[in-house]
């Protein structure tokens, strides 16, 4: 058990390290120039040299990502609760949620950028649109998956709607919500980056996507890789955060966190 758990930490780390070493070796042995494929050491050095400008952009992307994720969580959960309590509301609004989900974000981002004055706000909206559907859909399924016998029991004890929500529906939906959050976390980052590409690199308040665009205009390949590295690290960090959250909330009782 502990051996398996330790392996689950070391194996992916070793695999990642192995990949980087191989990459470095191939670039060096073949003498591939950095404007075609920079070695990891060059990417790291570029990252260090440009840390000031990249760090500010990184913070901006993180702000958009987590802002959108927080909005998606609040909006998705509230809407799911409303749908679970009112069937007509669900019938009326769920098609719009699906329409938003299936429309490619790059196709609506330019419109949003035109209608909304603040670039930050429009980026937030774009990332939110991408991120909120998995939370809405999963939470709704979770709210409906409550044990029917427990439902009857609460009816028998005369529970109010609010008590039913608090003591039965929300805990039942929690594993589903967490599963949705794991998907939405990555999607929020994708949404934040893609929307910024659609917005184009402009202004002072810009994120990592703008750095990547700028670097590509100047064919600064190592800098593109440096910015990309930060995007990937952010995504991995978000995934690990949702893992920690899942363990903390479901660890003692849900089968998905056992064994």
């Amino acid at each position, binding site marked *: 058990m502990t051996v398996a758990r330790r392996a689950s930490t070391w194996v992916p780390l070793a695999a990642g390290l192995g990949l980087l070493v191989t990459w470095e070796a191939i670039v060096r042995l073949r003498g591939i120039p950095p404007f075609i494929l920079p070695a990891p050491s060059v990417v790291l050095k570029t990252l260090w040299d440009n840390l000031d400008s990249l760090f500010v952009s990184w913070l901006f992307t993180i702000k958009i990502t987590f802002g959108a994720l927080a909005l998606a969580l609040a909006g998705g959960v509230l809407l799911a609760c409303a749908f679970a309590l009112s069937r007509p509301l669900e019938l009326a609004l769920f098609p719009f949620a699906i329409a938003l989900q299936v429309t490619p974000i790059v196709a609506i981002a330019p419109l949003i950028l035109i209608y909304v004055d603040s670039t930050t706000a429009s980026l937030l909206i774009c990332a939110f649109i991408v991120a909120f559907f998995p939370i809405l859909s999963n939470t709704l399924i979770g709210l409906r998956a409550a*044990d029917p*016998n*427990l439902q*009857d*029991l*609460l*009816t*028998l*004890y*005369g*529970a109010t709607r609010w*008590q039913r929500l608090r*003591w*039965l529906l929300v*805990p039942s939906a*929690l594993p589903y919500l967490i599963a949705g959050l794991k998907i939405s976390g990555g999607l929020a980052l994708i949404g934040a980056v893609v929307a910024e590409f659609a917005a184009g690199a402009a202004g002072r308040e810009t994120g990592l996507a703008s750095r990547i665009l700028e670097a590509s205009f100047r064919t600064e390949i190592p800098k593109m890789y440096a910015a990309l590295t930060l995007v990937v690290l952010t995504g991995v960090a978000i995934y690990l955060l949702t893992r920690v959250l899942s363990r903390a909330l479901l660890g*003692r*009782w*849900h*089968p998905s966190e*056992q064994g």
Partner: protein
Amino acid sequence: MSTAIELIAVDKRFESGVTALKGLSTTIWPGQFVALLGPSGCGKSTVLRLIAGLEQPTSGEVRLNGVPASKRAAPMSYVFQEPTLMPWASVLDNVALPLRIAGASRSAARAAALEALEDVGLAERASAYPAELSGGMKMRCSIARALISRPAVLLLDEPFAALDEMTRHRLNDELLAQWGARSPTAVFVTHSVYEAVYLSQRVLVLGERPGRMIADLPIALPAPRAASLRLEESFLEQCRRVSHALEGGIAAGVLA
């Protein structure tokens, strides 16, 4: 405190077209422990759900102390075939649930729950989660939850059917001790003749679908029941009587 249950010419037909119950009439007296016995699919559980007001009769009436069951005027508890615990809550919080719904504070509900768990010998597992308990312990927890609200009517739907025989015997005795302490009106659904006779003062036998009453047998055995009763001739004689009624009813159903 206790409540009389009346079923008056109750028919129950489901939307699927299945007729579960046909012309069911009986009166269960306050504080009586009644076993509802019958083959599977005869509508035993439907009777419980009608008494609980979770289903409405298609025709006829179900009344508790003269009030329609759908009004839920009497405090009631229900024990399902599965323990039906909240997996995300500790044993203590599971047992405290009915009091919390009734508006008790967290600390008051927990104190009462701990007492209820002591009564069923589960106090030292109060902070465990349901997944960490054996089947018998989960059922004890479920029974503790059912009794904590001091129900006037206790409905039990084959609660021990999934347990091994030794555990079932022990839980039968524990249930009787708990019931004896407060004497709510109890309706116990089972398909075991022995369990029905051992637990109850009266056995109602239902025939095959659609469920009709085919026998109403008082059980003349001393109370409180003791485990040694299971081997006594008087107990076995009662079991024989109930078995005959059950088999006679099934045979009649086949011939009809």
